[in-house]
């Protein structure tokens, strides 16, 4: 019933609007004062443009200034400070250009609004002017590009040999991280070996996998270079660490990498932002399906490299947590694996005797 009344009400309003429009048309037709009306509306539009230009610029500058902290995300990585600097330099240049052109354009629309006593100026071209506004933007852009390209080359350069390596794996709809363990080498993986427990698809015949461990939180040291090795199991995902200005797609079938140095630990950020609950987060920025918006991965940055290494030591190797998988390791290598994975001695004997059962899907 209510819906019906609303529908009828809307129809009534529309009908009234229609009749107002129709009557207005007929009245103007009878009066026949077409010419005057056009010029009065013409000025109205010109004034509205001025109003829009001034109002728009005021709103733009006011909001940008007043809410700066709201949209300016604190930066916490070395290259992030550089790209932020480039961003703000570009912002300064473009805002100046934008403001000037914006004002000039709307000022012209206002100043040169129709006047029946005036004739427009026949001004078809001016080569000097055209060359000037081709060359000037070209030079400004060139300067912006070259500083940007230098930064880009540094950022995408090879990571140093002693960088901390962490593998991040995206899947619908969660992230996991794999740490290389004491040997600092990520073991081989093969997607055909993935099963319910072996979610990394670790190829346990290779010894580097034995001490690799899994983490459901990304732990990073402050002040040491980190190299993220990124892959995806199912569809595209994208690693986005907003405070570190890091973004790189996770692509099934290949590894991508991103190296960076974190400059602020989680506790640094807590005191800087005054928010005792502050946490770094990692998000997915490549559409990956239903749960795309929920792929949050917590990130914790340790205050010192020592803290970070202490955390590394406190983690159990994946193989230690899943000793059943020792069966996949050839018998002669099992002992080495047990030692490397740090598996306690009491459960060893049974495993040692088991036959090798490697299954490829």
């Amino acid at each position, binding site marked *: 019933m209510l819906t019906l009344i609303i529908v009828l009400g809307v129809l009534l309003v529309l009908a009234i609007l229609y009749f107002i429009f129709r009557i207005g048309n007929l009245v103007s037709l009878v009066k026949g004062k077409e010419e005057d009306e056009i010029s009065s509306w013409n000025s*109205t539009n010109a004034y509205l443009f001025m109003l829009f230009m001034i109002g728009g610029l005021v709103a733009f500058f006011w909001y940008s200034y007043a809410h700066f902290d709201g949209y300016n995300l604190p930066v916490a990585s070395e290259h992030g400070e550089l790209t932020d600097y480039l961003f703000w330099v570009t912002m300064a240049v473009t805002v100046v250009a934008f403001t000037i052109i914006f004002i000039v354009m709307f000022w012209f629309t206002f100043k040169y609004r129709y006047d029946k006593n005036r004739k427009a100026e026949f001004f078809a071209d001016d080569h000097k002017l055209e060359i000037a506004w081709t060359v000037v933007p070209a030079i400004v852009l060139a300067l912006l590009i070259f500083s940007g390209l230098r930064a*880009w080359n540094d950022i995408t350069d090879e990571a140093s040999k002693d960088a901390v390596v962490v593998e991040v794996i995206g899947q619908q709809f969660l992230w996991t991280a794999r740490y290389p363990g004491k040997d600092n080498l990520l073991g081989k993986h093969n997607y055909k070996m993935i099963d319910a427990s072996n979610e990394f698809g670790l190829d346990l015949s290779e010894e580097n996998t034995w001490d690799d461990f899994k983490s459901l939180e990304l732990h990073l040291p402050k002040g040491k270079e980190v190299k993220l090795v990124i892959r995806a199991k199912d569809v595209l995902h994208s690693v986005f660490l*907003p405070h570190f200005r890091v973004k790189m797609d996770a692509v099934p079938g290949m590894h991508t990498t991103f190296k960076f140095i974190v400059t602020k630990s989680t506790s640094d950020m807590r005191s800087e932002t005054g928010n005792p609950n502050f946490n770094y987060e990692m998000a997915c920025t490549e559409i990956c399906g239903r749960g795309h918006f929920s792929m949050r991965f917590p990130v914790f940055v340790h205050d010192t490299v020592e803290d970070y290494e202490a955390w590394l030591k406190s983690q159990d190797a994946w193989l230690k947590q899943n000793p059943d998988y020792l069966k996949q390791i050839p018998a002669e290598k099992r002992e080495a694996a047990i030692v490397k994975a740090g598996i306690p001695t009491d459960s060893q004997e049974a495993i040692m005797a088991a036959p090798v059962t490697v299954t490829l899907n």
Partner: protein
Amino acid sequence: MATIDIHPQTSTHHHDDHAHEHEHHHGNFWTNYIFSEDHKVIAKQFLITGMAWALIGGILSVLFRLQLGFPDADLSWLKPILGGWLTPEGKIDPEFYLALVTMHGTIMVFFVLTAGLSGTFSNFLIPLQIGARDMASGFMNMLSYWFFFLSSVIMFTSLFISTGPASGGWVIYPPLSALPQAMQGSGLGMTLWLVAMAIFIASSLLGSINYITTVINMRTQGMSFTRLPLTIWAFFFTAIIGILSFPVLFAAALLLIFDRSFGTSFYLSDIYIGGEALPNQGGSPILFQHLFWFLGHPEVYIVLLPALGITSEIIATNSRKPIFGYKAMVGSMLFIAILSFVVWAHHMFVTGMNPFLGSIFTLLTLIIAVPSAVKIFNYVTTLWKGNIRFTAAMLFSIGLVSFFLTGGITGIFLGNSAIDIQLHDTYFVVAHFHLVMGSASFFGMVAGVYHWFPKMFGRMMDEKLGYIHFWLTFIGVYLVFFPMHYIGIAGFPRRYYSWTNFETFSGFADLNMLVSAAAILTLSAQFIFLFNFIYSIFRGKAAPANPWNSTTLEWTTPRNPGHGNWPGEIPTVYRWPYDYSKPGAKEDFIPQHIPYSETPESNLPHENELIKLELNNGSITVENKDQKH
């Protein structure tokens, strides 16, 4: 000229031909209005289909804006329309949200701003402005529309299937789009999407071939390339870009179809999904991205150039001034058209592509900013010392330049790979391309409708409703897209159903609400336009022959031009299309078909010399002959 002798004969032949055809076509509803081969009818078919799509695309966007702006709202009242796509709590289903985003993008980019814009105005204006009876091949032109229609039907159908339409984003990146187990929309919905797009590409190619052929071969006497209105230049370049880039999308789609249906591995490798490892190995998802953006980036200019051409024409006409720097405008369009093919990978800086390629594409991308800047400066200078009449079309054209400026300038951030790392796939990108390409092109399209409506339907649209429509839309669009810059700088990723899972993205509920409210306002304002459009077709004031005092040839046709456009001889062209406010001239415009010999008072010195050529080039003879008839 070499064609002196031939010309009179061919034109009389044309004339007879036309009269003959005219009789044929009379009275048959099917050949006149449905399977018409008349470019004007086909243009209207494109326009009306495009408008219907724009409405659907707009409504889809308001639906997902409801979710983003008012995440706690109970949308149960939409149950009769959305049915199972609403969760029991009255929220939009997260997967349906992605479907909405995907279809909004697909519809707006391809069905509205490619077919609706190019299809309408290239078809309508090319023959009328170059002085041709019709397109080079009316039949292919007719096919072009009906392929588009068929494609539309298939895409529209996909909205209603139970698993939903394609949902992997309008860029349909595999593996998401290749694997039905990854999301519902990658099942039948994706198949329909691919089929519809394949047909769409056929339609686009048929159209483009026609536009190019017509422009090259069918210009009237005297209509040299340097006398073409900028609209025609724009349509011409657009068609060339389309012909070179759409086949690549076709290839990309075809390989995706193979991967989906025939077990190939062009884009798939090492995938473990739904508890099983797929056999596909050796493919690369990056390959698809390269192929997609090889079309996808030129597509931006396919969408934008016609709008820029249309506004060039409208701004010159309504400033009562020649467009400033005609040659620079053509040159910058040519330059943009060429460069548009070598910048595609700037969409892929952080997709795992080799970073060295990133540097190259940064360089090339920022070069393309130069001709774009030139265009803006030329528009602004055209306004300078003009005598500006704010018709609805003019308002929308100025709106376009404003959007092109606002949205274009943020391209300098995104094209710079180092800065793009943070901004990629955030709302900053959404703000950028909606302003520079979406809204700007949409405004160009609307401006074109207001400007050429009198020629299309022989009646005028209501100007005052046009003003209201403009101001609501102009301010609405800015309110929708400008705040997105802030949201994007804050890092908010796009295609997110909700941000509340993240502390980092927990703010801006207020701005998102504003954006959604503005989106609803903007969509509502379009109904004013729709009313104005339909009402004016039937009840609008009868249009005078040349309502805007314009110089181009279409205004020399009768009020309602029949098939063949000009009842008699096609006018000969003697001058460029921008003789507005020429010093010494009686009126503030001199149409293209007025010879210099008739305007001695306003001729420039080098134009006086052209008078001799006019007398010699045979066109005078033709006129005499016609009189003898």
